[in-house]
């Protein structure tokens, strides 16, 4: 608890500090590549024949995903706190890569925990992390994926708490992580809201984003929470099916539980053992979800749906071929649902999809699934 308190205190101090904010904004602009465009996907819109589909292009950020928004914020915070050793967990490897980048730029040491199953399916990102100077610790415990990487990072943290900062990659874990990561990611929604008002002169009918831990989705939802006419859709990984062990959709298929220091929805069996998850996208392969999403779901403010592996692959193909944009398999879940949603809405409306990452890291998996 003491390190969490110290973190909360430091975060509260620096998040209101104008020089910290200015420094972070500088990194986000000139290092990460903000602001990202809001792109009208005209061909995809025509294809779906309904509402205009805008893509918030987080895939264009340095590193290829929204993750860098958070890692720059937290790495800067760690530096201010005087911590020089940074640990992180990673699923798809995007958070690990973004951590390695931020740490290299800020002169910090990065060590990343990654399940060996994820190391195998996201090899490219393992190489990238190593080239960026990070040490990658293979995790062989439990299900050997993201959940277990978090377990190992937490174990490392309690062991080296004096000199180590745990840079969590999503809106999960104990307080203050869900709040802090949301705040760092909320830049996505702030920009998107401003951009759509400029291009459309009005707010969108809906905002759609994929949900693993839930950081890109909460990041884009946050600025629209009070715009009650804007529908918010979180898309979870439907995997093979909604049967136990065949998906990574805790909001749709799980129930209340406690995991990684948070009370949230968890995929679990009757006895409370956390279940293994399954999704084609390593970044969504997590049995829990950020607690704020549970709040939004129960408050009726956001709706949570699922998209299967197969549908995500189809969406990947569609977006790549119609728009010349290869989405990350994670983001392809959001694209898939957005096409369906666009069709059901009239052409007067528009929707924003958070294109949270690019698909370069996934080419190997996709090549296996889409033989041509």
């Amino acid at each position, binding site marked *: *608890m*003491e*390190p969490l308190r110290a973190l909360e205190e430091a975060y509260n101090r620096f998040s209101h500090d104008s020089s910290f904010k200015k420094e972070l904004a500088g990194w986000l602009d000139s290092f990460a590549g903000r602001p990202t465009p809001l792109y009208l996907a005209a061909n995809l819109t025509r294809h779906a024949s309904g509402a205009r589909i805008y893509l918030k292009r987080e895939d264009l950020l340095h590193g290829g995903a929204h993750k860098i928004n958070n890692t720059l914020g937290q790495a800067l915070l760690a530096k201010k706190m005087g911590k020089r050793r940074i640990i992180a967990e990673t699923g798809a490897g995007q958070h690990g890569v973004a951590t390695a980048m931020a740490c290299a730029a800020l002169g910090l040491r990065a060590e990343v925990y990654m399940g060996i199953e994820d190391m195998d399916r996201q090899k490219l990102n393992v190489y990238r992390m190593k080239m960026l100077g990070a040490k990658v610790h293979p995790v062989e*415990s*439990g299900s050997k994926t993201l*959940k*277990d990487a978090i*377990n190992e990072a*937490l*174990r490392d943290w*309690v*062991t*080296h*708490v*004096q000199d180590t900062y745990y840079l969590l990659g999503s809106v999960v874990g104990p307080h203050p992580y869900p709040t802090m990561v949301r705040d760092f990611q909320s830049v996505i929604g702030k920009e998107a809201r401003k951009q759509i008002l400029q291009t459309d002169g009005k707010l969108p009918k809906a905002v759609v984003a994929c949900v693993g831990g839930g950081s890109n989705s909460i990041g884009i939802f946050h600025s629209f929470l009070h715009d009650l006419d804007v529908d918010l859709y979180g898309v979870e990984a439907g995997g093979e099916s909604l049967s136990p062990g065949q998906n990574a959709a805790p909001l749709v298929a799980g129930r*209340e*539980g*406690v*995991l*990684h*220091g948070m009370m949230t929805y*968890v995929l*679990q069996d*009757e*006895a*409370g*053992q*956390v279940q293994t998850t399954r999704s084609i996208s390593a970044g969504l392969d997590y049995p829990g979800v950020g607690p704020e999403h549970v709040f939004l779901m129960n408050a009726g403010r956001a709706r949570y749906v699922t998209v299967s592996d197969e549908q995500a692959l189809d969406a990947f193909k569609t977006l790549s071929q119609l728009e010349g944009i290869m989405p990350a398999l994670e983001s392809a879940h959001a694209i898939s649902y957005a096409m369906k949603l666009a069709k059901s809405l009239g052409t007067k409306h528009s929707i924003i999809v958070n294109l949270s990452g690019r698909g370069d890291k996934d080419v190997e998996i996709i090549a296996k699934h889409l033989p041509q």
Partner: protein
Amino acid sequence: MPSTSHNEDRIEAKFRELRSRGDGALVAYLTGGDPDPKSFLNNSIALIEGGADIVEVGIPFSDPIADGPVIQASSMRALSQGATPKGTLGLIRELSSQFPVPFVVLSYYNPILAMGLDRFLTKARESGVDGIVVPDLPVEESDEFRNLALKHNIDNIYLAAPNTSKPRLRTILDSSKGFLYLVSLYGVTGPRDTLSPQALEAVSSVKSLAKGKIPISAGFGISRPEHVSAIIKSGADGAIVGSALVNIVSQYIENPDEAADYLRDAIKKLKAATKKS
């Protein structure tokens, strides 16, 4: 279970009895149902017969974040044999009906929540559980659970770490019953060759704050008789040994009878080290 067959405050009574003899408590941990229910029962009996003062049983969980590789592996072994919280409490019941030692159960919060707090505690009490440790339930979040545990006459045992602040330590001391579980190092459970440099210092600082109101037992990385002896001599009322025992279980999976013999032997040596002078 009515108090006729189960005296209340059996844990503190045990500490009192030991203290009057100039002795410290040896708390011996095994993971419930590891490697299978029958071997677990035999191993537990070996610990009790070998001289364990309090038996601590872990409820296997899929994500034991406070545990190192040894106890993680034991949880996985037990789960692969179909261990459940209910089944583990059933095993404790078999033991508590035969032996008068106090039983402490260690469970992560989610299995308790899944069963329902009240149902879990009712079952635990019926099984002869005297105290409970929930490593991922911080004192700040535990009012509901603590009150229910009190109602069921189960001692709520909290953990404190070497970096726990004084104000928080006071809250933990005030909230704990049975004993305070002092984590003797920065890290997770697991056998260590030497006692952590923080251990003795942590014992004496917690001891001075506790002012004798509640027994202090130290655990994590306490593996050998000389560790136990040093911990007790530094003022702790008890020493908790877990991974070192689970390690023995894991080494004799193929010959469970041998595991029990080695455990009995190990516990005798550990127990011999609890004398205060």
